[in-house]
């Protein structure tokens, strides 16, 4: 415990707090590339529920690719430059950075962490940024939208928005890998319950789901389809066996793997894997009474609209 009577402590403290947003409700929002194309429903529904929860998401001006898994796999420092450019933009905006994509969340966080820990890397990146007339001092906190909703906004506010409780709906809360690994500080890395708590607040229930943070196979669904299908298949099968009516996810890649290939996956693991798959934001928005368009439910390849308009969900 420090007893320093520090008259000018503000100088050092300000660096770490400057990006926390004046009231903790305004964020720089990083959608991520996937939400611009195949997973735009996640972006649409994220913005809709954020507005309902009083979170102001200001899209990060001219953001670029985070330097995702596929990028860092062959060029590391360049990937850090990509992340750092986004972080620098967020620093300029003076707000914490929030993303709903678990992949972007890990990549941006990793760049942040490694730059903080490795002075050599930091100076390389700083020099590169300078070539584009940018600067990053290392003060931006990167958050996952799910974490913000559950741990910052919290139960009371979420419950207050519920107009269509999900009574009777059984949900498999599939968190996937990268929400809680390796940076999910407020969730158990292997058994996160962040979405379980959320579903509970929305009036629904989650099924015990042992594979809730196991890998869906990621990009391997495309590059190594055999391996990818087996992994995704296990997850869908376990969700079904646990009695789930649907699966929710907090990552565009997980979502795509789980919903896009159900037939072929089913064939691979030898069972019926058909199950509605939603983003947690869509489910939450539905409970908030938002219409299908605001949640881009029409984008789904699985019958989510039917699911949400079952009687059980309406009572």
């Amino acid at each position: 415990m420090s007893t320093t009577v520090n008259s000018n402590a503000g100088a050092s403290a300000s660096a770490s707090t400057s990006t926390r947003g004046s009231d903790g409700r305004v964020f720089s929002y990083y959608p991520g590339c996937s939400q611009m194309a195949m997973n735009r429903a996640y972006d649409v529904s994220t913005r809709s529920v954020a507005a309902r929860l009083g979170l102001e998401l200001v899209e990060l001006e001219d953001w670029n690719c985070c330097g995702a898994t596929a990028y860092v796999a062959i060029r590391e420092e360049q990937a850090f430059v990509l992340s750092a450019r986004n972080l620098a933009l967020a620093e300029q905006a003076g707000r914490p950075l929030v993303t709903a994509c678990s992949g972007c969340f890990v990549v941006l966080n990793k760049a942040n962490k490694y730059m903080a820990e490795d002075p050599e890397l930091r100076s390389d990146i700083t020099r590169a940024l300078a070539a584009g007339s940018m600067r990053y001092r290392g003060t931006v906190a990167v958050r996952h939208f799910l974490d913000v909703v559950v741990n910052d906004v919290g139960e009371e506010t979420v419950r207050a928005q519920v107009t269509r409780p999900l009574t009777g709906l059984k949900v498999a809360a599939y968190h996937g890998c990268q929400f809680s690994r390796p940076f999910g500080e407020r969730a158990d890395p292997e058994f996160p319950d962040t979405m379980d708590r959320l579903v509970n607040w929305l009036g629904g229930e989650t099924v015990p789901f042992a594979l809730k943070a196991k890998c869906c196979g990621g990009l391997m669904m495309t590059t190594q389809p055999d391996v990818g299908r087996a992994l995704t298949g296990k997850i869908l099968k376990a969700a079904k066996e646990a009695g789930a009516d649907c699966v929710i996810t907090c990552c565009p890649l997980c979502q795509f793997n789980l919903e896009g290939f159900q037939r072929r996956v089913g064939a691979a693991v030898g069972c019926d894997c058909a199950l509605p798959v939603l983003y947690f934001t869509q489910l939450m928005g539905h409970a908030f009474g938002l219409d299908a368009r605001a949640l881009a439910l029409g984008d789904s390849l699985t019958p989510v609209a039917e699911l949400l308009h079952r009687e059980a969900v309406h009572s």
Partner: protein
Amino acid sequence: MAVASLDLREVFLQKLYSIPNGRKVNECIQCGTCSASCPTSHAMDYSPREIIAALRAGMLDRVLRSNTVWLCSSCYSCSVRCPAGIPFTDVMYELKRLGVKHRIGDKGAPNTVMAREFVHLVDRRGRNHEPALIRQYFLHTNPLRALRQFPLALRLWWRGRMPLRGHTIKGAAGLRRMMAAIEENGSK
């Protein structure tokens, strides 16, 4: 001839040690937690534990020629569980980069193509554009398989999930300058 010459090994170890906690590979107790935690280790030539053993034995060749790195899906299970604190996922990334850079190992071909196309897109426009990436990927790997993906593509397109045009960021030129700068730095 061993592709992994002594020099390469030095280069690799240097890179490996430069990542945070990279040196911890030397503290591996060969407990196998990583292998048993890995969702794809059953499909690997060498399990993660064996990769570390091979690294320490100096058998970089074996490491780079294996399919192991290309089966890592970055789920970080091994990293969070490793009792020796080895950031194995990061080790995998380092190995991927080394393999690509020195064009060793063909087992990663599809992934390499995916990654290269990804980098190409991002470097040009600042962002990824999924439809274009998928198109390029299948063109460069197995155009026939692309045909099989067609129904899915159609369903996606029908729902507006396959926009034809990608977005180029305003700061693309600046980004290119940054990339040039970091590359110059790397070649020093």
